[in-house]
């Protein structure tokens, strides 16, 4: 119990630090690196929620593939576009602080009030076989839809680069 609390405290602190850094860096690559650290830490957080498989998938898919793709795209732009990204306070209304204030109020209220005595953290093992049973029996329609939706990026990429080639050759 105590180890878990200490580890989560440290993780929350790291999250706060890197969130602030990600917000206030002006160089897009540095900002990106902070967000990368956040994504990897989120994979660690999944371990504490009994979702080891999701944690590994998070690191492989997000940190390993999607964000590398983003970094690749960043390098296609000239350096001047990535530097000096200013925070634009012009369009900020005072009312937009309302949800933040509400969020902080809720957090503090839980912290002050504490959680009820009856609460007990559940320890459910994230069983892969159970999940795959669910996936392929109850949610097969969702998977087919997913595969259908995922074919769109492929087609889009193909069409985009075909058109590129045609315009380049003519």
């Amino acid at each position, binding site marked *: *119990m*105590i180890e*878990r*609390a200490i580890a*989560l405290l440290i*993780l*929350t602190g790291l*999250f*706060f630090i890197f*969130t602030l850094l*990600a*917000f206030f860096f002006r160089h*897009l690559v540095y900002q*990106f690196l902070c*967000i990368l650290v*956040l994504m990897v830490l*989120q994979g660690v*957080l999944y371990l*504490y*929620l*009994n*979702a080891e498989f*999701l944690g590994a*998938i998070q690191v492989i*898919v*997000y940190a390993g593939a*999607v964000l590398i*793709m*983003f970094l690749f*795209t*960043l390098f296609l*732009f000239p350096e001047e*576009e990535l530097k000096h*990204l*200013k*925070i*634009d*306070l012009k369009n*900020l209304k005072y009312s*937009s602080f309302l949800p933040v204030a509400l*969020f902080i109020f809720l*957090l503090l209220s*839980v*912290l002050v009030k*504490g*959680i009820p005595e009856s609460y007990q*953290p559940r320890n*459910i093992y*994230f069983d892969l076989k159970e*999940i795959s049973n*669910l*996936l392929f029996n109850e*949610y097969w329609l*969702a998977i087919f839809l997913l595969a259908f*939706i*995922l074919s769109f*990026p492929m087609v*889009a*990429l193909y069409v*985009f680069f075909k058109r590129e080639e045609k315009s380049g050759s003519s």
Partner: protein
Amino acid sequence: MEVLKVLASEYPFYVISGLLIFLGIGIFILKKNLLVAILALEVVFNGINLLFVTASHYLGDPKGKMIVLLTLAVAAGSFAIGLILVVNYYRLKRSLSMEELKLLGEKDEE
């Protein structure tokens, strides 16, 4: 001891997911750059994922984790399409600013 007990519960996860969502929205609103916008949307998406997983842990129901597994795949695809759009937009306009993004199609030549 009370604080430790709160920390050991799902409380920090809710805090972190809120943090991620607000970070994403804040970056999206305050930095008017298309690349940053795409990154910010991903951060918001991850915050919501964390919320789903936390809720499924709290309720003892694996369906929340499964939804995350399904949406992760969609997110990767949508991210790629967004990046393609941004790169094409930059080729046309030579700018990444969101403020110049006014037209929906090609401009009519008068």
